[in-house]
């Protein structure tokens, strides 16, 4: 059943007055490390003004204690800025990060203390990787995310290596050849549909061993595929989606604007929709899409809508639908395009903002290509039906 919840305060509201008041000690402590005022302001904004309030509060508390300790110890050593530091990379969508050369934060991770304690070796490298990986991946503490962070760190070792994509480095193997194909499939079928297609074909041809190998090789690059492969190994098989919960939410509406694509869900939904309901598909995408190929699959029922004109689809009898890639503790993963249309000016212009979960769980590696938002950003959340295992899980 769809969940309807009263909306809590916006999760990404600006900093609370209490932290705003005490920025000065942190600003002072960062001066040695980040001499440029604009770099400092950027780093402080990322730490104190962005993300959920409890993250901001925790970061503030730790940094404030550290700043206090430094001040009592006579300030940060002046040589700190010159010490060896591992660059911290932004989490850009993978295909953009490959060619971008301005994807690092101004603040690096100094490794002198770790070098001193652990010396050279794998243990030290793993800790550096854990510290320089995405904060959320670290919080989950899962092994796959750690390995993903290792991959990210290896990329950061040199700009040349960073520019070379995982696809290029793995090009000799069959799975690596599948990576670019998965990109095109994800763009036009959706991440979940593409992943199930690849996992299914590999599973049928090579069994669980092949699926496990596919997960190992491509799972870090495509976390949704990692999730689907894991589900496959646990006995799950893709099922025909049931659009009835969405249909009941759309009753009496005139227009539906869909953000993102998941071909099986959208096919089933469009086929079941009343003919008088207009359906638009937002054309803004991270991955290249051949719209001449995508739209005819819906038999003329769906039209392409661009970012500049999508508000012409707004109205008291309009709904906005996006696909959700798992929900955990009130947080959901969605395609970045949803953030582009879900501004405060737009939220009240659609009767419903519906999220339809197509995974039923959160991918273990950090879900690149997707963004995490609070579930309360939606007016309706439709969870995925729980799966009944059809066979014993693979060892």
């Amino acid at each position, binding site marked *: 059943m769809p969940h309807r919840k009263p909306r809590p305060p916006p999760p990404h509201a600006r900093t609370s007055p209490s932290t705003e008041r005490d920025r000065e000690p942190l600003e002072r402590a960062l001066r040695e490390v980040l001499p440029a005022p604009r770099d400092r302001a950027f780093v402080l904004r990322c730490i104190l003004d962005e993300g959920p309030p409890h993250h901001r509060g925790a970061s503030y508390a730790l940094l404030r204690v550290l700043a206090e300790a430094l001040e009592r110890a006579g300030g940060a050593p002046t040589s700190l800025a010159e010490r060896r530091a591992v660059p911290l990379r932004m989490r850009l969508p993978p295909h953009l990060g490959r060619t971008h050369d301005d994807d690092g934060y101004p603040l690096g991770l100094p490794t002198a203390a770790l070098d001193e304690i652990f010396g050279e070796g794998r243990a030290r490298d793993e800790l550096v990787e854990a510290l320089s990986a995405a904060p959320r991946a670290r919080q989950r503490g899962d092994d796959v995310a750690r390995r993903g962070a290792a991959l990210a760190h290896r990329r950061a070792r040199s700009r040349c290596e960073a520019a*070379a994509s995982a696809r290029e480095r793995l090009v000799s193997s069959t799975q690596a050849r599948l990576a670019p*194909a998965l990109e095109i499939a994800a763009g036009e079928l959706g991440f979940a549909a593409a992943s199930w297609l690849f996992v299914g074909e590999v599973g049928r041809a090579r069994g669980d061993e092949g699926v496990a190998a596919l997960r190992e090789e491509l799972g870090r690059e495509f976390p949704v595929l990692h999730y689907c492969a894991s589900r496959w190994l646990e006995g799950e098989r893709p099922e025909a989606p049931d659009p009835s919960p969405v249909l009941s939410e759309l009753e009496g509406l005139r227009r539906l604007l869909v953000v993102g694509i998941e*071909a099986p869900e959208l096919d089933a939904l469009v086929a079941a929709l009343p003919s008088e309901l207009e359906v638009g598909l937002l054309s803004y995408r991270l991955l290249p899409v*051949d719209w001449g190929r995508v739209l*005819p699959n*819906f038999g003329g029922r769906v039209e392409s809508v661009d970012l500049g004109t999508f508000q012409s689809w707004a109205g008291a009898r309009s709904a906005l639908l996006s696909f959700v890639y798992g929900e955990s503790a009130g947080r959901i993963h969605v395609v970045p395009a949803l953030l582009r249309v879900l501004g405060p000016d737009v939220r009240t212009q659609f009767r419903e903002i519906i999220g339809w979960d197509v995974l039923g769980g959160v991918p273990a590696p950090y879900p690149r290509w997707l963004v995490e938002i609070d579930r309360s950003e939606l007016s309706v959340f439709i969870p995925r039906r729980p799966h009944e295992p059809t066979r014993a899980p693979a060892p």
Partner: protein
Amino acid sequence: MSLALALSAVLLASLLLQARLPGARLLVVLLGAALSITIATLGGLGSASSMLADVPWDVLVILVALGLMSELFVEARLFSVLAVRAATASRATALGIALVFGSAMYLTSALMNNLTALVLVLPVVLVLFRVIGVTRRQAAWTMGFLLVACNLGGAATPIGDFPAILLLGRGSMSFGDYLRHALPATFVGLVVFGALACAVVRRSAVHQDAISASISLALIRALYRGAALERRLFIPLSVTFCAMLLTWSFAPRDWGLGAEHVAWLGVGAALALRPKLGERLLRTRVDVESVLFLLGLFVMVVAVRRTGVFSEAARLLVSLPIPAEAQLVVFLVVSGLLTGVFSAGPSMAALLEVAQVLATRLPGQIVYVGLALSVCAGSSLFLTAATAGPLAQSLTERAGIVDERGAPLRFGFADYLPVGLVGYAVIQLLAVGYALWGLASS
């Protein structure tokens, strides 16, 4: 004489400039035409209206009509269905892709606008490449084969491509005569060149496993899952098109039904099958660029023809102290090379004037079909010689495929050149062989 020189210079400069600046080719040719009319009018060769009256409008009518017919078949989803079926038939193997898609492009281009077919078929090939992996050489020979097959298909029937349409529109050859002579010759060319291309593809293909083939086919089926023939449009459309083909082939001359008349009537009837769609296609899908480009060329050619330059060139050719057969061979080889530089439309428009003089001394069908084959050879020489080449280049490079070394896949001028040289040699030899064999047997 100075008038002839000035108008020839304008024609030549426009042709060179449009080849050098393909992004501005329409502007170059239309300005050249305007300049030609001005020079001709000032030189007393005739007014703009008299020169426009000499433009072969029937050819433009056929071109527009066949373009619209192709668009109707696109709406009936014929090309998408063909592309998916071709992918399945190829079994996603390197050799299968070259063989099946090459043959499909030949057949399609013989009846439809090859650019439309290429735009719809090439993305399927590129998706297959993306999954199964491809070497740069394999890609160049596979894509090159598709382009050469398009050119051969276009020359196979009188409605396949502009040079043949020009022969039909001008009344140089009847529909049936052209088909009887050109179809077998181009088919031989397809088989010979296809065998060479497939041999190279086979040797240069990456090692392929069953899983990438099965994934690529599953992916194609998923991407084109809605690709089903729209029978309610396709069946009456096919009936109309068949009626046009039959009328072109068998209608007695004394009925007075010109090729352009049949095309106009036929496409009008076909568009009327779906009035709303027909109106939309008429308003948005007519290939205005091609029409204006050819109009500009025809105007320049008309102006030069009025100075007698083409007759003089033909006179020089027939006065060469060599046998008539050798004169024809020289003409055909020069035609092929000129087409390689100037592309098919401009070359054919100018060379047909010379061919008409040669056809008064030699059997007409041999001269015209030989010319059509030579123009086909020239169109295959360089990537830039036919419009399909740059289109294939941009589609390939936009597809973001990587080659065997992990580098972005390119299909540029140099990649195509070996394919083009072999294709040119095969088809040019075919044209010369056809002409000599035809002369010997007549």
